[in-house]
């Protein structure tokens, strides 16, 4: 009843091409932005801003990067964490060695470095597909970490191989409080997510999807395989690289190469599988589920044992948390194999018919 486009006419091409064709969606989007940019920093306390929302945004960006590659272009990759590591460590080096550059250009350059690494490790995708490609990208995961651990220049010869991100100063304005860091992260993530959304609706994005759906057919209709696949690797790695730089600069502060192990690559892969493969929205939903749900379970279990007055052994709670989490992943994948993004879509379609379903 409320959610219907009846009576909304499009009279220009620009309107027809808008990201949100329905007015209600536009309103909801701007409300969301208003909440995220104004209400959250005003109302959220330090815990929410620095321990929950900032990592959520960063991992959503990394998941988005992987989604461009895996969801849109159909190339399976297990090197996401390595691309993040390149971004994190190169951003540190750019700020350290070229302080006149500024933080944002350093992030962009770090992203470009990650993109270059992505292109190199994307080369096997020209010959191999599917699981075999995933195994080839594993090489990237191990090689990148190995280089970071062995080549002293990257960590500025730190004895333990750990880097400490510098202070973020943009045009003389220092981002130090959790709210400031959150806002910076949010701004970057919003810009990049909108860019991704538009990119996927452009010729490039359609070429990606054509390659994903059937690469032989795509090359027959004249889509250059090499350019498209390598571009997908480059863009995806760029996103992951920027996410890595944010991870070091706005979230952890001090990072060691071990933070970017294969384990993290898998977690980001799970994010897009749970959230929805081939969906921008799905990257955010998946990241929310994987990052926030264990924390919620943890807090909730504490509350339950407090309320019931029984001391549940903490080891049991910790293990139970992992079991419930794993069980829920299986449950959601059985109920909706296309992820949360598909559920969201179904909900929207139902809402448009409500209250008169036919």
């Amino acid at each position, binding site marked *: 009843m409320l959610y219907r486009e009846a009576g909304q006419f499009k009279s220009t091409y620009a309107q027809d091409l808008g990201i949100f064709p329905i007015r209600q969606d536009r309103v909801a989007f701007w409300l969301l932005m208003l909440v995220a940019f104004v209400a959250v920093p005003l109302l959220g306390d330090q815990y929410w801003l*620095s*321990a929950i929302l900032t990592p959520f945004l960063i991992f959503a960006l990394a998941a988005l990067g992987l989604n461009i590659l895996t969801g849109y272009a159909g190339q399976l990759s297990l090197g996401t964490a390595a691309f993040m590591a390149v971004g994190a460590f190169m951003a540190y080096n750019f700020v350290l060695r070229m302080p006149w550059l500024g933080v944002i250009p350093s992030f962009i350059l770090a992203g470009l470095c990650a993109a270059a690494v992505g292109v190199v490790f994307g080369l096997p995708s020209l010959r191999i597909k599917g699981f075999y490609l995933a195994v080839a990208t594993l090489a990237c995961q191990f090689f990148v970490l190995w280089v970071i651990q062995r080549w002293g220049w990257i960590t500025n010869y730190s*004895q*333990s191989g750990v880097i*400490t991100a510098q202070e973020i100063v943009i045009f003389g304005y220092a981002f130090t409080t959790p709210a400031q860091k959150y806002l910076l992260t949010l701004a970057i993530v919003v810009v990049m997510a909108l860019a991704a959304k538009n990119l996927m609706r452009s010729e490039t994005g359609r070429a990606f999807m054509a390659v994903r759906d059937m690469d032989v057919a795509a090359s027959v209709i004249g889509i250059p395989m090499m350019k498209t696949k390598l571009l997908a690797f480059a863009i995806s790695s760029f996103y992951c690289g920027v996410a890595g730089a944010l991870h070091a600069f706005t979230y952890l*502060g001090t990072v060691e190469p071990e933070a970017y192990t294969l384990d993290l690559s898998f977690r980001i892969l799970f994010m897009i599988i749970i959230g929805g493969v081939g969906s921008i929205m799905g990257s955010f939903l998946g990241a929310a589920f994987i990052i926030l749900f264990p924390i919620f379970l943890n*807090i909730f279990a*504490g509350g339950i044992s407090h309320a019931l007055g029984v001391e549940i052994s903490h*080891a049991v709670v*910790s293990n139970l948390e992992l079991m419930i989490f794993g069980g829920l992943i299986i449950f959601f994948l059985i109920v909706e194999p296309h992820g949360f993004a598909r559920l969201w879509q179904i909900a929207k379609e139902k809402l448009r018919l409500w209250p008169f379903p036919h």
Partner: protein
Amino acid sequence: MKRIIAAGTVALATTFAGTAAAQNEQFVPANFYWVGPYAPGGSGFGGGMIDYFQLLNERDGGINGVKLTWEKCETEYRNDRGVECYERSKNKGPTGATVIHPLSTGITYSLIEKATADKIPVISMGYGRTDAADGRVFPYIFPLITTYWSQNTAKIKFIGMKEGGMDKLKGKKIVNIYHDSAYGKETIPVLDAQAKKYGFQVTHIAVPHPGNEQQSQWLQVRQIRPDWVILRGWGVMNPTALKAAAKVGFPRTKIVGVWWSGAEEDVIPAGDAAKGYIAAGFNLPGTSFPVMQDLLKHVYKKGKGDLEDTSRVGSIYHTRGIVAGIITTEAIRTAQNRFGKGKPITGEQMRWGIENLTIDEKRLKQLGATGLMQPLKVSCMDHEGGGAVKFIQWDGKKWNVITDWIASDQSLVRPMVEASAAQYAKEKGITPRDCSKEK
């Protein structure tokens, strides 16, 4: 459904009510890990610390009447979860988190800046960032008792003793097998410096995390034929190393482990392969100490102990947690003596308390912990405070102490600590404090 929601609301309401309760409490977060490959360390250490707090609450009614409270938070030994736990716990209790024991070198690194900004001291007892021993640059970070670098010099001293003098080290071959992480790599520069000083040869061999596959590394050891092997392992890597050493026939009596490689959990899974293995330790195992007897009497007899498996009481990790509890509470006592007895202290006051902490032999005797740990004296300049190590050997059933406290070689370590801290200060634009002006 309604019932579940109601239960949930009640649960949440009581959680919030719980935090607003009694004001005469000192809150210490228990952010450790009870799952994953490192769970034995996390649950044992956490259990020991909580047990000691429980003992003070039960036996003495807290510290000068201030009861100790804590809340567990699962970090999974992961940096991001550790940061989340830190943020969650830092404002709990009437005065916020008093002090944090991250029990992970990685999490310690992640917390250095955050905790310094929030004025909450971090005690990284026997792990963490070594150069934080320079308190002028790291006012809120305390790598108490011994840092990795200090204990490493003690290890070389021990090897020198076994060889019959430090001059006998010349021409000897030592292999350093390390966990390929920030933790594992910390001692490489010190070993290199010592190799130069004493004229022995050192080879560093990395074992990738988690370390359950070490065949190629030990084949390399066999080719090198070293006189000694230093094992810098953690978790599952340790028993695997001992078994692999047995397979290639390297004598276990020539393997010296770091203290994170020297617990019951590290040797029992290796079975007979662990017999004769030597490890460093800054705390000793056992239940014969008076404080452990009190613990059994006042806490475990009443069923209030934290360890479910009571056979772990008195194990290395457990007593290490007890030592952490003693240090934490003694620092709180020190701070209370200055800022007001019987009142909860803030993180900033706790920082003063740790920095001015002195635990001498007399005090250790009063605490019933003589021999459990070494005397400690912390200062603004020296955030380490102890530095000595005892060596223990596994006989197949229990750990036996084979040396007295062996002091570390601070003439070598301290200049390296100061140089490294100065580099950090320069990178971060920190002006080191003037210790003569601290009071």
